[in-house]
């Protein structure tokens, strides 16, 4: 379904020094994949997610989606091909309502009726009656925004969804809910999920884990093989397993 070939991403600072964020990454993901990408902060995880969605353009390398080269396609074109992206920090809008955003996500017209919107919001633990007519602005808390962000991805229901640290900013109750959301998405469709995460409990439900550090793939394999190795490395420092940020 998705192939990253020799993917590189560089940024230059004022002194024209190049910094490599992603270095020659090669990854192939099959259909109905459930992948967690983890690794230390600053290791390139979010950048990789943005490269897949087209929010950032690679310095070199190619991205293939179902065999088609999408490296030169913009965000809209990739979205239309069936890629979704959940932002780590969801965007606020003055004057756009929760209802509007979910309708846009579900296909862009007003045919999406209240019961469907209600269903998407219920999956992320929100009561639609309280939320559909609220603006997606500063009146919503970070956790509420995050849940609405995930509801937009559920509403899109695309073959590939990329989540950038879905756990960030979510409270513990919603976190349990979130795990169920991912499990259900994986169980009830053939869609693929790529989740950027630090959370052991998310890693624990993925089929495969990719460890990304310093811009390169350090390890990739079945959860059963990778997870014990990851956790072993954290002995002696109980804080390594980053808690859910509240």
């Amino acid at each position, binding site marked *: 379904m998705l192939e990253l070939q020799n993917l590189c991403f560089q940024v230059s600072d004022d002194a024209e020094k190049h910094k490599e964020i992603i270095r020659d990454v090669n990854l192939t993901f099959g259909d109905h994949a459930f992948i967690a990408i983890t690794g230390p902060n600053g290791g390139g995880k979010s950048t990789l997610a943005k490269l897949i969605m087209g929010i950032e353009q690679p310095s070199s390398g190619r991205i293939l989606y179902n065999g088609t080269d999408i490296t030169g396609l913009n965000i809209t074109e990739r979205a239309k091909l069936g890629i979704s992206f959940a932002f780590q920090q969801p965007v606020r809008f*003055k*004057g756009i309502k929760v209802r509007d955003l979910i309708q846009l996500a579900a296909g862009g017209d007003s045919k999406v009726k209240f019961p469907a919107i209600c269903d998407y919001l219920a999956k992320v633990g929100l009561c639609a009656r309280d939320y559909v007519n609220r603006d997606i602005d500063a009146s919503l808390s970070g956790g509420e925004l995050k849940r609405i962000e995930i509801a937009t991805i559920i509403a899109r229901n695309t073959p590939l969804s990329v989540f950038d640290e879905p756990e960030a900013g979510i409270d513990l109750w919603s976190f349990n809910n979130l795990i169920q959301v991912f499990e259900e998405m994986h169980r009830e469709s053939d869609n693929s999920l790529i989740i950027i995460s630090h959370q052991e409990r998310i890693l624990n439900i993925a089929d495969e884990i990719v460890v990304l550090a310093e811009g390169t793939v350090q390890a990739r394999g079945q959860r059963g093989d990778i997870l014990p190795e990851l956790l072993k490395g954290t002995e002696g420092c109980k804080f390594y397993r980053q808690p859910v940020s509240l």
Partner: protein
Amino acid sequence: MDEIQKTLLEQVAGLHEMPAGAYNIRANGQSVERSTTAHIDIVTKEDKQGIDIIIKPGTKKESVHIPVVLSQSGLTEMVYNDFYVGDDCDVIIVAGCGIHNGGDSDSRHDGLHSFYIGKNSHVKYVEKHYGSGDGSGSRIMNPKTMVEVGENSFMEMETVQIKGVDSTKRFTGAKLADGARIVVTEKLMTHGSQVAETSFQVDLDGKGSSANIISRSVAKDDSRQVFYSKINGNNRCTGHSECDGIIMDRAHISAIPEITAANLDAELIHEAAIGKIAGEQITKLMTLGLTEAEAEAQIVNGFLK
């Protein structure tokens, strides 16, 4: 009325046919339709252009529509409308002006609306401006609104100018008595080489009076906007003004606030923010499959909704 006038009427007053309640429709400088009710009277002024709208004390849940349409190119008019709202009323007043200018001369409507609101009343006043026509003559509107809000009364004012008006100079002045409140919501969009200036002066004279002035505007192409707001706190009162502007292309927006407290218990706040559409908002909507232009339109429409 002809088709052009009917379209204008629909744009500024949302009217497909004659409204219920009291109304006065002015087309090309003349009053063409009028209806009054047992509680609301409309009387033509004798010394100048315009009407007196007299709303009896205790009038509840009634509406007055007084739209103006101009479709004759080159017509210039100055109209004075006075609203006398009695005590204990709850009414909606819908004004608005639509100009269609298909010719080469300027068409211009200047209006002075004065409100004298009694005690314990609630007035919702809605004013929409709209221009159309592809003649080279300008469509000009200069509305002036003067409001005196009586004790414990509440004036809610919504003004909308979204399309087609080439030049606007708007002034709204309000004086508030004890316990009186005013909330003004302004939505403005300019495009092409349009110019819009909007100016508020609110005198919070009464004890416990309050004012909230909210302006949202979008300036596109080479258009220019200036927002002035002046709030004077002369008693124990609260005043808040907010100007939120989006600039696009080569447009200019200025926000010039002034708050003056002349009493220790006056609490006055001004907020202003002008900037382009946040890039991440466009990115988010593009990830939902919208093109960049569609995303921009969605953001602007939402902002002005």
